[in-house]
Every structure is written in C-alpha cells, then in structure tokens.
C-alpha cells in the first residue's frame, strides 16, 4: 500500500485491540474450556514447557478431557455447566 491514508479504527466497533491490551488473555467459555491467547508459556509444576502445537489453546475446565491439560470436547458429553 502506498500512502493512502487509512482512517484509524475503521472497524473499531468490532473489538479493536487497544494499545494497552495485555500480552495474553484467558476467555472462560460458558459450559466449556478456558481459551488462552497471546504471549504465554504453558509449563508443568517443575517449570518445564508442556508440548504445545498451536498458538491459541483450550484448557480443560470440566476435568473429563483425555488430553489434559487441553480440552478434547468431552464437556459436551458430560453436560458440564459453568457460567461463565
């Protein structure tokens, strides 16, 4: 793009990031997992990194995942409820 001025915040109504946004965010999804986005490390109690294959992860919150600490969707089968 060459020098065409772009109006800042043209889509500001859609949750545009603010300059002060945290490095990472955790979203608690109703009846579902904790979604973690951004710049973070996932480690075991000794501080060693856990295997991680993607930038954004979903952490199990219902306790029934076979992939803990990650979510595997089992919360839907056991009728897990949490709000949020």
């Amino acid at each position: 793009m060459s020098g065409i001025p772009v109006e800042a915040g043209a889509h500001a109504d859609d949750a545009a990031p603010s300059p002060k946004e945290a490095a990472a965010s955790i979203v608690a999804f109703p009846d579902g997992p904790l979604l973690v986005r951004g710049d973070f490390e996932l480690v075991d109690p000794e501080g060693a990194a856990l295997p991680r294959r993607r930038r954004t992860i979903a952490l199990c919150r219902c306790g029934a995942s076979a992939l803990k600490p990650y979510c595997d969707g089992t919360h839907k089968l056991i009728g897990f409820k949490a709000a949020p």
Partner: protein
Amino acid sequence: MKQPSARGTVSELVLGIITGVGPAQPALDGLPDAVDRAVVSTPDLLFDDDLQLALFCLYELHYSGIDGASTDWEWNPTLIGARGRISAAMEARIRQEVALGELPAAKSEAVAAELFRMTGEAGGPSMSRFVAKEATDQQLREFLINKSIYQLKEADPHTFAIPRLTGRAKAALVEIQADEYGGGRPARMHSALFAKTLRELDLDDTYGAYLDTTPAITLASSNLMSLFGLSRRLRGAAVGHLAVYEMTSSQPNRLYSRGFKRHGYSEEAREYFDEHVEADAVHEQIASRDMAGGLVESEPDLLEDVLFGAAAALYVDGLMTVQVMDAWAGGRTSLLHSAASPV
C-alpha cells in the same frame, strides 16, 4: 488435478471445453441448454453424478485447476453462467429441505447456543461410532477415499470468505484457518496430515486421485462449501457451515482414531485425527462465538444465513453419511465402479 472421466452430457461438455477436446465454441453454445435440461429433469440434483461432477470441475478451476485446462477458462462467462445455473438449483434444493427453528437473538452468545443446540441434536447414524467399533479395514479405506476429495484441500473453500468479513469475525476465521494451515509449518497443515494418513495406508495422496470413484453426494458436500465460499452473498452461510464443521469434529475424530488404532495403524497414520481432537476443541469455541456470533453482531441481517449455512452442512453431510453407511450395511462398497480395491 487429474482430469476425471465424464459422467453424462453436462460433465462431458464441460470437460471437453476446458481440456480442449475439439473446437470449444459449438460446445460452449450448447452448454446453457444442456445444463437447463439436466437441471430441470434430474430426480435429485444432490445425487446427480453428471451435474455434481460438472459443478465440481467448474469450481476446481478456482482452486488447483485441472490438468490440460487453460487458466483462461476460470472466468469464462459461459462457464460461469453454467456454474451459476447448477449452483442456484442446488441452493434451492437445499433451502426447500432445511427448516430453521425460531431465530435466536442476534447476539454472539445466543448464536453460539443455537449452533451448539443444532450440532448437538443432529440425528442420523453415527459414522464415528461405527468406525471406532465395527468398520473393516476395507471400510476404513473407503472412508478415507470419500474424505480425500475435501480433506486434501481442507480449509480452502472457507478461506475465500476471509476478505468478505471484518473485525471480530474476520480475526476469528483467520485464527482458525492459520491453525488449519499448520501455523506456518507446512507439514502440520491439516491437508498434509491427511495426505500422510493416506500414504500410511498405501493410498494415493494426490489431490483428486479418487475423484472417479467418488459418489455424487460426496461431491455435493464439497460443492456446497465452494458455493458458500465463492459467493459474497452467502458469506453468512460460509461462516455457519465452517462453524458446524468445527463443532462436530473433536469427539468424532477421537473415535476415528480409535478405529484406525483397532486395526493396528500407527500413531503417524492417526495423527490427522488426533490433531483434530485438540485443534477443534479450540476452534469450535472461536467459530461459534467469535466468528459466527461476531459476524451476526456486526451484521444482524446475516443471522438467518449463518443458521442456513449450518443447517445445510448438517443436512448434506447427513445424506452423505446415510448413503455410505447404507452401502456398508448392505455389504456393498460406498464407492463407484470397482474402486473397492483402489490400491
């Protein structure tokens, strides 16, 4: 993609035109009427081999192309016209069938709740439970061959929707697609993981290798995604369709993996399925709330389209599952010809 064999008048005309068999003009002149006749007279467009193959080939000009077909054909007005005629009839056929319940509020949480309700209630036979517990080795191979028509270009149709979205919905779709495309690592692309599974079973991982053995309804499932992805008018449906795919994936893939393990297939062969258990547990949250919910909040008029896309995905893929499982229940192959022994 390798040129497929024609399955009737329309696909023969289309393939003849784009691959340069004989002079193109007479075939182009005859195409609109041939398409019209076929669309009007077909007992069911979703199961029409000739029309679904023709549509698949016309869409394929926008993806990887077809061997021997000049790229100039991609935007040929007559071909675009034929594609539009077939796809409009297909959309009408599906709209006749899918009934949307009472519309939820045009709010992210309400849209997500409705999508979870729709995907949770989807009836019909369970392919994943069958694969986990009962499918024979030959049926596992057929299962992969049927899937290969889409999974070797997994994510591509919905990617066409990216420039048509803005803000939260766009960020969500890109976040999902980045993961589908391996997060920058080509070997981790879902299509590449699927290709590895095919190779582990000594199947051909070339895109379109099994097209000639793929039944019409499987092509219809793929064509539906192209229809939604290539039309800005249907961007809401593209989003609803992808949301359903992400929301009906985690648990089934765990069962698919179990089925392949039952037959002694390696971790390498099962990685595609195992990856989807974890990835789609992430994606379904992003897809339902941020992508579908976010789109509806920014464009409330698209609420119905989002739910239509979701219902259409469940409907067409439901038909595909029924056809495959009916064939297996009757001791038959679910594929065309004698492709039951494709290796």
